[in-house]
C-alpha cells in the first residue's frame, strides 16, 4: 500500500510546555554558568597583571645630593704656569668640592695671584666660592682684595666689601653690595661697583662718598 510519503515533519513544535520565565532564566544560568566563571577568572588574571608592582626601573636618576665628595683641612693649593712660575696660591682652613655643580667652597680663604705684569694680588675672605678652574671666584664675608706692585708703580689698590665677585680671566671685579676702594690717600665708598683692571676703569653705583687726603705736595707756606 503505497501511502503518500509522510509530509516532512513540521518544525518541532516544542513539545514541552513553555516554562515560566524564571525557570528559563535558571535554565540559561545553569547552562552558561561555566562560561561566566571562566570569564570571571580571566578578568581576575587581567586585573592581577595590571596591579602587580613593577620591578624598580633600574637605578632611577635620583636627584644628585649637594654633598661634598672630598674635603681638605688646613690646605695649600698651588698652581704653576707653563713656565714653572707660581701663578696662584690658595690657602684656607677647609675646602669642600661639590661634584654636582663642580664648584669649590673654601672657609677663611687666602689667595695670592702673581700676574704676568709682575703685580701681586692678595685676597682674603671668610668664605669663597669658585668654579672648577678658579676663573670665577666669589668672596663673601669681610672680603678684601689688595693689588700692588703694578707696572705703573701706582700705590697699592685695595677693595673691601661684604661681597666681591672676581672674574680672573677678564680681570674684572664686581659687587652689588657696598664696597670701599682705597688707593694712596684717597678712599671711595659706594653702593656697588664694577672694576676692570685691563683698562683701569671703575664705575660706582650710588650712594657715592669719596675722600681725598690733602695734596701730597704739602703746603708751600
Amino acid at each position, binding site marked *: 500500500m503505497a501511502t503518500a510519503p509522510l509530509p516532512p515533519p513540521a518544525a518541532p513544535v516544542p513539545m514541552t510546555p513553555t516554562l515560566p520565565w524564571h525557570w528559563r532564566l535558571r535554565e540559561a544560568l545553569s547552562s552558561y554558568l561555566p562560561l561566566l566563571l571562566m570569564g570571571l577568572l580571566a578578568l581576575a588574571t587581567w586585573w592581577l597583571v595590571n596591579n602587580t608592582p613593577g620591578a624598580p626601573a633600574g637605578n632611577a636618576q635620583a636627584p644628585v645630593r649637594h654633598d661634598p665628595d672630598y674635603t681638605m683641612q688646613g690646605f695649600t693649593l698651588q698652581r704653576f704656569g707653563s713656565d714653572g712660575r707660581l701663578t696662584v696660591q690658595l690657602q684656607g682652613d677647609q675646602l669642600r668640592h661639590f661634584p654636582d655643580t663642580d664648584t669649590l667652597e673654601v672657609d677663611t680663604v687666602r689667595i695670592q695671584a702673581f700676574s704676568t705684569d709682575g703685580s701681586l694680588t692678595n685676597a682674603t675672605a671668610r668664605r669663597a666660592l669658585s668654579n672648577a678652574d678658579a676663573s670665577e671666584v666669589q668672596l663673601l664675608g669681610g672680603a678684601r682684595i689688595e693689588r700692588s706692585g703694578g707696572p*705703573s708703580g701706582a700705590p697699592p689698590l685695595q677693595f673691601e666689601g661684604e661681597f666681591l665677585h672676581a672674574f680672573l680671566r677678564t680681570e674684572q671685579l664686581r659687587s652689588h653690595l657696598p664696597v670701599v676702594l682705597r688707593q694712596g690717600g684717597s678712599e671711595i665708598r659706594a653702593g656697588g661697583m664694577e672694576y676692570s683692571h685691563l*683698562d683701569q676703569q671703575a664705575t660706582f653705583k650710588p650712594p657715592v662718598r669719596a675722600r*681725598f*687726603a690733602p*695734596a701730597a705736595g704739602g703746603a708751600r707756606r
Partner: protein
Amino acid sequence: ARTDRNQPITIDADKPGTVDMLKQVVVFNGNVVITQGSITIRAERAEIREGADGFRSAVAVGSGGQQASFRQKREGLDEYIQGTADRIEYEGRGDVVRFVGKAQVQRLRGSVAADQISGERITYDSTTEVFSVAGSTAPAPAEGAASGPGNGRVRVILTPREGSAAAEAAPAPASGASR
C-alpha cells in the same frame, strides 16, 4: 681760608660715578657736594683730577636751570665769598677759582651781601684775594637791551665798609658808590 688747601676733600654724589686710574680722573654725578675746609662746591656733575704734583683740581658743572655754586670763608674775617656760574674750575694748588658762564660772585659780610660782581668769566685767587672779571666777547646787544648781568657786560656793585667815613656819610648804600 688759606688752610683750606691742606684739608682733605670729601665728595658726596647720588648717581653712578666713574674712576679712571690711568688718568687719575674721578667723575661724580647727581647733586655733587664737594667740601674742603671752608670751601663748599655744589653742582650736578664734578670731575676731580689729580695733577702730577699731587694737587687736585676740580671742575664742577651745573645742569639745566641749576648752576654750580661755590662758597668759601675768607681768611680771618667773618666774610664769605659766594659765587654761582655754569661751570666752576677750582685749582687746589694756587687756590684759583674760575667762574665761567653767566658768573655771579658776592662777598657776604655775615649774611649781608657787600660786593657783587657779575660777568661772563670771573677769576678769584683766594691766596692773594684778587678778583678779575671779564665780560663776554659776544657783540654788544642792541642798545635797548637791559643792562642786567646776562648781557655780557661786567657789573660790579661795591658797598662801603661799615665804620668807614663813607659809610656814615651815605646812610643808604647807593649802588656804584666808591669804597
